[in-house]
C-alpha cells in the first residue's frame, strides 16, 4: 500500500483469538490502519502479554481452548493493573455477544465484523 495512506497511531491493540486466519487477517487490517498489534491465541497467553506490554484496547474472542473469553474477562478484572483496559468482544455467536454485552464490555460485535464500527471503537480508545 502507499505509505502516505497510513496514519500512524500511537496505540497498541491486543487481539485474543484462537483461529489463526481470523487473528492474522484482523492484525493485518489494523496494521494497515497504522496500529501496532499484539496477538494471543487464548486468554492465558493474553494475560502474559498484557503483563509485559501495555495496550489501549483488547479485541477478544469468546470460544477458545485453554482459557476462553469469559474466563479471561474474570481474570482481567481481578487484576487492578489490567481491569481498566477496554474490551471489545468479537464472537461468531450472537447469543454469546449478547451475554458479553450484559457483562459490561466496551462493545460486543458479531463476526464477520463491521469494520467501520470496529475501527471507530478502536480509534476512540487508542
Amino acid at each position, binding site marked *: 500500500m502507499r505509505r502516505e495512506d497510513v496514519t500512524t497511531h500511537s496505540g497498541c491493540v491486543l487481539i485474543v483469538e484462537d483461529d489463526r*486466519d481470523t487473528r492474522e487477517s484482523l492484525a493485518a487490517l489494523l496494521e494497515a490502519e497504522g496500529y501496532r498489534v499484539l496477538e494471543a491465541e487464548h486468554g492465558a497467553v493474553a494475560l502474559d502479554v498484557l503483563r509485559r506490554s501495555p495496550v489501549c484496547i483488547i479485541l477478544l474472542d469468546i470460544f477458545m481452548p485453554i482459557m476462553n473469553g469469559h474466563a479471561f474477562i474474570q481474570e482481567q478484572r481481578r487484576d487492578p493493573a489490567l481491569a481498566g483496559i477496554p474490551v471489545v468482544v468479537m464472537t*461468531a455467536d450472537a447469543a454469546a455477544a449478547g451475554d458479553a454485552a450484559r457483562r459490561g464490555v466496551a462493545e460486543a460485535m458479531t463476526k464477520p465484523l463491521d469494520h467501520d464500527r470496529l475501527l471507530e471503537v478502536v480509534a476512540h480508545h487508542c
Partner: protein
Amino acid sequence: VSRVGRRLSAELDLDSLVQDVTDAATALAGAQFGAFFAKGDDPRDDALTLLALSGVPRDAFASFPVPRDTDVFRATFTDKGVVRLADVTKDPRYGRNAPHRGMPPGHLRVASYLAVPVVSRSGDVLGGLLFGHPAPDMFTPRNEQLVVGLAAQAAVAIDNARLFEAAQRAREAAEEASRAKDEFLSVVSHELRTPLASMLNWLKVLQKGRPDDDSRFERAVASMERSTRIQVKLIDDLLDVSRIVSGRIRLDARPVVLSGVVRAAIDAIAPTAEAKGIRLEAAVDSNGVVVAGDPDRLQQVAWNLLSNAVKFTPAAGLVHVALDADDAAAHLVVRDTGRGIAADFLPHVFERFQQADAAATRAQSGIGLGLAIVRHLVEIHGGTVAVASAGEGTGTTFTVTLPLVS
C-alpha cells in the same frame, strides 16, 4: 375416606402417596399389617414390587421373595376382585404352590386375609393392597367396603401421578432436544461465520491496495482460499446430513478397487498432515480389493477418517492407514497416536452433532458431522464401522469393514 381421598388427589409424588394409602387402609381395615404391591408400567411384565408396608418394620419381610405365583396371591393382580378370608390357611387355594406350600418359615402369622386390587381408569390392575391379622375372622364386610373405596381413590391418584410423571419425562425430553438443537445451531452459525470473518478481514486489507509486503499478500490469498474450502466442506457436510436424515443419499454403485480410493484420500490429506508435522504411514494392499459402491462416497469415508485422525493428533504424532482383505470383507483401519477418546464418549462418536468438547472451550473446529456421515455411508454400502480407544491420550483406531464383491 374422603378426607384421605382429597389429600391423595393433591399428592403427586408416587412413593409417599402409596405409603399414605397403605397406612390409611391398614388402619381402616383394622389389620395388624398391610402392604402395597405394584405392577410395573409395562403390562407384559407381571413382576410385582413391594412399594409400601404398614404396621410392621420393612425388615420383617425383607428376607422373603415377593410371592408372585401362588394361587391366593395372584388372584388380586389378575382382576379376580377382592379376596377376603376369615382364615387364609383354611382356604382351598392355600398351600398348593411350590416351593413353600404356604407361608415360608419365619413369615408373620396371618389368619385373617384381605386383598383388594387397585384398578386404573383404563381397567388395568396397577397393584394390590394386602392386609393380614394373626387372629382369624378380623375383617368385616364394612372393613372391605372402606378399603375398596380407598383403593378406588388411590387408583385415580396413582393414575394422575403416573400421567404427571410421563408428562414430566416428555417435557424433559423435549427440552433436551430443544437444547441440543440450539447448541447445534449455535455451533453451525459459529463455524460458518468464522471463515467468513477472516475472508472479509483480508478483503478489507486488500481493498486498501496490494500490501508492499509480498509475504503478507500471499498469506492473504492462501488464507482466503483455505477459509473458502473450509466453508464449502461445511456446507457439503450439512447437505449430506440433510440427505441422510431424509433418506435421499443416492449411490452411484459399481465395482470399486478400494486401494485407489484410499490412496486418493491419503494424497488429499498428506499436505495437511505434513503442515502439522504428523507422519502419515500407509500399508495399502493394492491387489484387487474390490467392493461394490460409490467411489466418491467411499473416498469421502476414507478422507473423513483420515482428516479426523490428523485433526486430533498433535505434531510429531503418527497416523497409520492399512487396507487389507480376508475371504469375505475388506478392512480399512485408520489408527492415530492422538488424544484418544474417553470411554464414556466412545458410544457417541458416530452420533450427529456430538463432539467430546463443550463448544465454549474446544480446541477443534467442526460441527461434529464427519463421523456420523462415515457411519451412514459405510452402512448403506452394507458395511460396518467400529471405533476403539484405550482412553484419553492413547490414540484411536477406526475400522471400516466392507463386503467384497464375490
